[in-house]
């Protein structure tokens, strides 16, 4: 079950979400009562300076940490109080894209994409076919049997996107996916991501410093000092 209003499906919905590190006198609150939503079929950007709480927020949404205070619903599932098994189940419905790709070095491009499909697709032949289709969609059908170290940064990130999309996730969390890419590769990656996700009606939450991506977003949230607010930048002059 997902939260819906009249026209849009809310994939992420937070209410007074707080998170702290440390205990006692060393306790430091990083997120101060966040309220925001991310919807299906939209590319949402989360921008903000270093240390603003972006990574903490991503790990909470990705069910990689326990929610301590407030409410966080991801794909209709309340994560506050969720046990490890429930969080693992949620993680299987999310596509993750990391800044440094995090591909498995000992697996080929095709195997990297196949690996994640093991969680959903029991038929090995179907896994190979689906992985090939995804890699063709990201323009890497000629690199199926190459290892990550044999690819350029842009190609690796496209493999990471194919891997994230493999289990047909309802939500994609991407952390600085263009950070290590040149201008054109970064643009290609974001366009590819946006295109694939709109077609699949997935939600994309993209954390970035990259100003060039602002124009590709359906919605932008700015996080600063642990507080998040909607943001409508002047694209000609603004920096996140």
């Amino acid at each position, binding site marked *: 079950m997902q939260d819906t209003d009249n026209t849009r499906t809310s994939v992420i919905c937070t209410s007074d979400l707080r998170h702290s590190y440390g205990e006692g006198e060393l306790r430091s609150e990083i997120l101060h009562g966040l309220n925001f939503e991310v919807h299906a079929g939209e590319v949402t950007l989360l921008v903000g300076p270093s240390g603003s709480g972006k990574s903490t927020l991503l790990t909470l949404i990705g069910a990689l940490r326990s929610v301590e205070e407030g409410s966080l619903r991801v794909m209709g599932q309340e994560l506050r109080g969720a046990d490890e098994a429930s969080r693992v189940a949620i993680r299987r419905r999310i596509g993750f894209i990391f800044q440094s790709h995090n591909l498995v070095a*000992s697996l080929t491009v095709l195997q990297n994409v196949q690996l994640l499909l093991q969680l959903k697709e*029991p038929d090995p032949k179907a896994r190979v076919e689906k992985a090939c289709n995804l890699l063709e969609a990201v323009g890497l059908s000629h690199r199926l049997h190459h290892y990550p170290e044999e690819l350029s940064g842009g190609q690796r990130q496209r493999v990471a996107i194919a891997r994230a999309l493999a289990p047909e996730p309802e939500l994609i969390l991407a952390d600085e996916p263009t950070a290590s890419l040149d201008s054109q590769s970064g643009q290609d990656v974001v366009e590819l991501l946006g295109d694939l996700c709109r077609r699949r009606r997935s939600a994309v939450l993209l954390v970035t410093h990259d100003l060039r991506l602002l124009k590709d977003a359906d919605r932008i949230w700015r996080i600063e000092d642990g507080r998040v607010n909607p943001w409508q930048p002047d694209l000609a002059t603004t920096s996140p």
Partner: protein
Amino acid sequence: MSGLRRLLGRLNLADLPLAWLQLKRQPIRYLVAVTGIGFAALLMYMQLGFQSGLLNSATTFYEALGADLILISPATLNSGNFQQFPQSLLYNALGVEGVRQAIPLYVANVNVQKLKGVKPTSLRLIGYDPDSQVLNLPDVLAQSDLLKTPNYVLFDTLGNRNTGPIAAAVQRKGDQVLILSDFSKTFRVMGLFRLGSTFAADSNLISSDTTAIQLAYRQINEGEISMGLIRLGSGASSARVQRFLQRQYGSELQVLTKDELIAQERDYWNTASSFGVIFGFGTIMGLLVGGVVVYQVLYTDVSDHLKEYATLKAMGFADRFILIIVIQEAFLLGISSFIPATIISTGMYAFLTAASGIRIEMTSDKTALVGALTLGVCAASSAIAIRRLKDADPASVF
């Protein structure tokens, strides 16, 4: 078939065996690990081989004895050093119901050399009445009549290299004259047989009782023997006669079946002597070396892949999936080390057998033991190394 596929799938061995792919991707590290663990398995094989060689060499002679019961002095601790006892005690057994034959046996070590030779060799001399056919060895039974001539002996071709070209000379010329190394007596090797050397002697000689007494005059006192062999009549109960004889001899003699004699000999070398301790220690050392190598390899491997494992956990793979990868790696390392170690050890056993004359064989029990120890130490090492997995925090990937 689908059940097997499901099982392999659960063990990550179906179409994407990640553990194997990770090992294969780093061939140098894999080779180093296999070499290290394989060396440890080889060390264990060698220790077990030496131990079994010692026990084989000590008991092969007993296994060849054709007797229902055997008498030895309680002071005889092992087959390398027989304490003599009065021959008259043996003949007392002939008065016991069920005893058909009582045969004296002489066992002594003699140092001999070729007539113009300079390097003596130490040989175990076994002497008995040639008509009694004491040793169930085809070559010996076929040549028993030769032994009836004084100073004629048979020579064991399975001795070690210290025996020099004696066997070759007999094969070539038909006989070979030898002399005791104190130059007191000569005798003639007239035939060959196969038994196997021991840790105490380079090879074996078989002679008549008369010849044995003459050649080993320094060790065999008149009227004394090394062993007494008892053969029973048909229908006699071995256990009953043994109990009766033991009661009759009291503490003067031990009355043993062949199996008991062999077990006593093995027990001496395994426990009472220092050999068992040394070989056992060597086996444990091999085990420890293997354990340290596997642990080090796995720990480094897990550390190197920590980020990947954290990523897999973040993407929804359960901890069990990653645990299985590490355990599989350990077993793959164990198996791929064990197989070459077994092949090399088989070759080394053959070489050592040829060089020493002591029979060292690759047997299924050695293979099973070293295989179990190798895989066991791999499992134990993986159990320690997977503690490192707790550092694979999925929250650290962002």
